[in-house]
C-alpha cells in the first residue's frame, strides 16, 4: 500500500533514505543520449564510489525500480576504472578521493556525477547534495550536466536550491 504524503508528513527520515529517493528522482528528470542503451533490456547503472554502508543499504532499494523501462542496477565500485560504464555515479567523498580526480577521469562521458562533498558542484560535479536547516537540498551545475551530453528537465532546475551555469 502506498503511503500518502499526509501519512508521512512531519516524519523525519534517515539522510540515506532521502538521498536514495533523490537519486531516483534525479534520474527521472534527466535524459541520457539515445546511444546510451543499445537494447530495451540494458540496465541503468548507478555506481557507488566510497559510499558509507548506510548509504549503500538505502540505495540498494533502487534495484527494484526502472528508468524508462530500463531496470536500475546499483553497484559498488572501488575505483574509477569501471566508472565509464555507469550512467550515474554517487560518492560521499569521505575518504579523500577528490571531486577533481573523479571529474578528470570521467570528463566528457555521459555520466551524472552526484557528490555530497562541500563545494563539489562548484568544482564541476553535476549535482551537490547538501543539508540545509535539517533538510536535504542540492546545487545543480548545468554546465557540467550539459557538457556530459545530458538534458535536464526545467522542473529540476526550478526546484534546485542553486544553479550554476545556464541552459543551452
Amino acid at each position, binding site marked *: 500500500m*502506498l*503511503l500518502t*504524503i499526509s501519512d*508521512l*508528513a*512531519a*516524519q*523525519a*527520515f*534517515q*539522510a540515506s*533514505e*532521502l538521498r*536514495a*529517493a*533523490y537519486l*531516483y*528522482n534525479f534520474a527521472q*528528470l534527466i535524459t541520457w543520449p539515445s546511444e546510451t542503451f543499445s537494447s530495451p533490456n540494458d540496465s541503468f547503472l548507478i*555506481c557507488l564510489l566510497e559510499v*558509507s*554502508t*548506510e548509504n*549503500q*543499504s*538505502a*540505495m*540498494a*532499494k*533502487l*534495484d*527494484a*525500480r526502472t528508468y524508462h523501462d530500463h531496470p536500475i*542496477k*546499483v*553497484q*559498488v*565500485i*572501488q575505483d574509477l576504472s*569501471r566508472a565509464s560504464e555507469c550512467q550515474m555515479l554517487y560518492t560521499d567523498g569521505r575518504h*579523500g578521493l577528490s*571531486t577533481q580526480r573523479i571529474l578528470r577521469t570521467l570528463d566528457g562521458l555521459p555520466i551524472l556525477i552526484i557528490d555530497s*562533498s*562541500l*563545494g*563539489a558542484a*562548484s*568544482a564541476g560535479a553535476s549535482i551537490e547534495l*547538501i*543539508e*540545509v*536547516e*535539517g*533538510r*536535504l*537540498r542540492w546545487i545543480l551545475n548545468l554546465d557540467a550536466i550539459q557538457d556530459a551530453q545530458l538534458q535536464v528537465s526545467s*522542473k*529540476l532546475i526550478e*526546484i534546485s536550491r542553486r544553479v550554476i551555469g545556464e541552459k543551452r
Partner: protein
Amino acid sequence: MHCPILTRMIGQARRALVLSGGLLAAPIALATAADSPLLDLSFEDLLQFEISSAGKREEQLRDIPASVTILTRKEIERYGWVTFEELLANVPGLFIHNSLYDRRIGSRGTLGGAMQLLVNGVPQHSTRQKQLVFSEIPLVSLPVESIDRIEIIRGPMSVIYGNNAFLGVINVVTNEISSYGPRLSASIGNRSSGRLFARAGKGFSEGFFALNLGGYRTDGFDANYADMMSPEQRAAMEPGMRRSLDGDTPLRDLNLDLSAGWGDWTLDLRYTQEKYGYYFYTPPFDEGNRVRVSTWHASLGWERAVTDDLRLRATALASSQYQDYYAYDFISAALEGDQTMGDTQFNLEFNLLWDPQPEVNLLLGYRFRWNQDIKNDVRIPSLLDLTHRVDDYATNDLFGELSWRPLQQLRVVGGLRLTRLPSSFDFSEDDRLLETQLNERVSTANRNLVTGRVAALWSLDKSQVVKLIWGSSAQDSSAYDYPDPEQIETSELVYVLTRPRWSLSASLFRNQTNNILRIHWEIDPDTGEYRVGQDNSGRWTTHGAELIGEWRPLPALNLSFSTTWQQTEDQTDREPGYSPPLLVKLKADYTHRALTYAAYARYVDAMESDWNLINPTTPGAFERLGQPTDPYWDLGINLGYRPSIQGLYASLHVSNLLNQEIRYAARETIDLERGLIGAGRRAMLTLGWVF
C-alpha cells in the same frame, strides 16, 4: 568544524561499525532490500521531509565511552530554550545553582566542580585559578540560537582536556554554517527581557566562515528580601537598605564568536561580556552591586593527514577573563570601592592521531600552558585595600589515549595524563590599608599529577552495549596555600539499548571527591583558643543511579524522561550542601505541519546549604548557612511556527508556567537564610528570519 578529539571518538565508533559490518568486495551488486515508501514520492513531496538525526545519535550513545547527551539544533528549536542556562538545566543529570554572583553547574549531586566548555573544539578559559574566584556566568551566557549541536559528557575528562574538566565536558558546535545558514531573530519577554541574534557565514569547498552575534538582557529577580531572610536577618536590616531584589539584579550580555577554516587551518575568535547585578552579604542601599565580566579567546589550529592513518594537529590558544566589580553597595551606605581580578592564559598543544591497525587508535598529546597577570585588586578604602598577585607560572601536560578492539564485540579504551605542576606558587600581597607587604612561596608537595581513564565497552548485539568506566580528574582551587588540586574519581556501569523508535540508558555511578577545601575550627597553639582554619582534607563520596529513556511512538511525537538519584556524604557522614538527591526531567513534543507543540517538566529535589562555623559559645559549633530549600517542579511550554526552512519563524516560550516558587539554598555571599527566590513565570516571544 567539530571538537577534533570528540569527533575522533565518534569516528572510532563509526570505523568499528564498518569493521563489524564488513566492506563488500567490488564491483558488486547490492542485495535488493525492502522497498522504501519515499521512492513513490515526487520531489515536491520529498522536499518537505526533515533528516532524522536519530540513527546517528543512537550510534554515538552506544559507542562513546562515557555518559553522553547529544542535542541537535532541531531539538533545541522545538523546545525554544531562551538561555543556555535553561537548556543545561533540562539536560539529564545536571542542575544549576544561582547565587546571583555566579551560576554553578552541578552534575549528579556535586556542585563546585568545573565543567569544561568547548566552543567548536576550543577550550574556554579555565575558571579554576589560584587566588581568583571566577564567575562561570560567561559559560552559560552563550546564545542558544548559535548552537548547531551540543554534546554533554558527564564524568571526569581530564585525561583529554586537563584542569577544568572535573565534572565533564560540554562541547558546543556553532559553525556548521553550510547546514544552518544565516539568520536574524529578535525576542521580547516579561521582566524587560529581550534578545537579539544575528548569524552570517558561508561554506566553500576549501573552507568556511561563521559569525554569531547575540545579546540578551533581563531585569532579573524581583522577590522581597523579607521573604528570604530569617527574623534575625530582617531585624538586622538597616533603615536605608532596599527591601526588594527588583532592580538589583539586571543582566546584560553580549557574545560574539567567529569561526573560520581554510585548508588545514582554523581560526576561532570569541568575545563575551556580561554586566550584571548581584547580592553580596547584605541588601544594597542604592543601585546595588555591579560587575562586568569579559572574556576573550583567540585560537589558531592546524591539522593535516600525513598518511591515511596518521594525523598531526597543533593548536595555539590565548584567552583571558577579567572581572571588574565597579560598583560595591553593601554593609554601609557610605561604602565605596571596586575590585578587579583576572588573568591571561596561553596554551600550545600538539596532537598525534595514529591508527596503526583498523582495531587500534592512538592519541598522543603535549600541552604547554602559561598563566600570567594573575591579579586580584581590591580597593574599598574603608574595608580592604590590597592587591594579591601570583607570579606567572607554567604547567606542562603529556597525555595519551589508546582505543583497542581485541574482539568484534569488545572495545577497550585507556588514557593517562601527566601534568607537571610548578615547583611552587609565589604569592604576594600588598596591603595598602595596613601598609604591609607579604611575599610567600608555597612549594608543591607533589609536582606530578596523574589522571587517568579506562573504559570497556561490550556490545551484546547491534543495539545493546554495556560500558564499564573509570576516570579521574583534577582542578585547581583558589587557595594559593594549598597547591594540591582537588580530585575526583568516578566509577560507572552503563547499559545502553537502542531500538528504531526508542532507547534506554541506565547507569550506576560512584564518585570519590578528595582534597576539597574546607574550613574548620582548630586550636591556636599560642592562645589555646579556637580559631578558624582551612585545609584541603575534605572528602565526599557519592553513590547514584541514572535512567534515561527516549520514545517516538508516532513519527511526529517525541517523548523523553530522565531521572538521577544520588546520595553524597562527606567524611563525617554528613550531606554536603547543594546536592539534590533526585532530579527528574520530562519532555514531549509534537509537530503537525508548520506548528510544533512542546512541553517539559523539571523536578529538583530539596537542597541543603553549605556548613558554616558560628562564633562559638560552644567551641567547635557549626550549623548550616541557611534552611533547606523545598523541592520544586518547573513546567514549561514552547509553541513554534515554521512554515518553511527559509523565511519567517516564530515561537512563544513560557517557563515556570505554574509560577512555582523556586528557591536556591544560601551560599557564603548570599546567606539569605530561607534561600534566594528565583524566577517566576517567564514568557518570551521570538520572531526570526532564515536566509
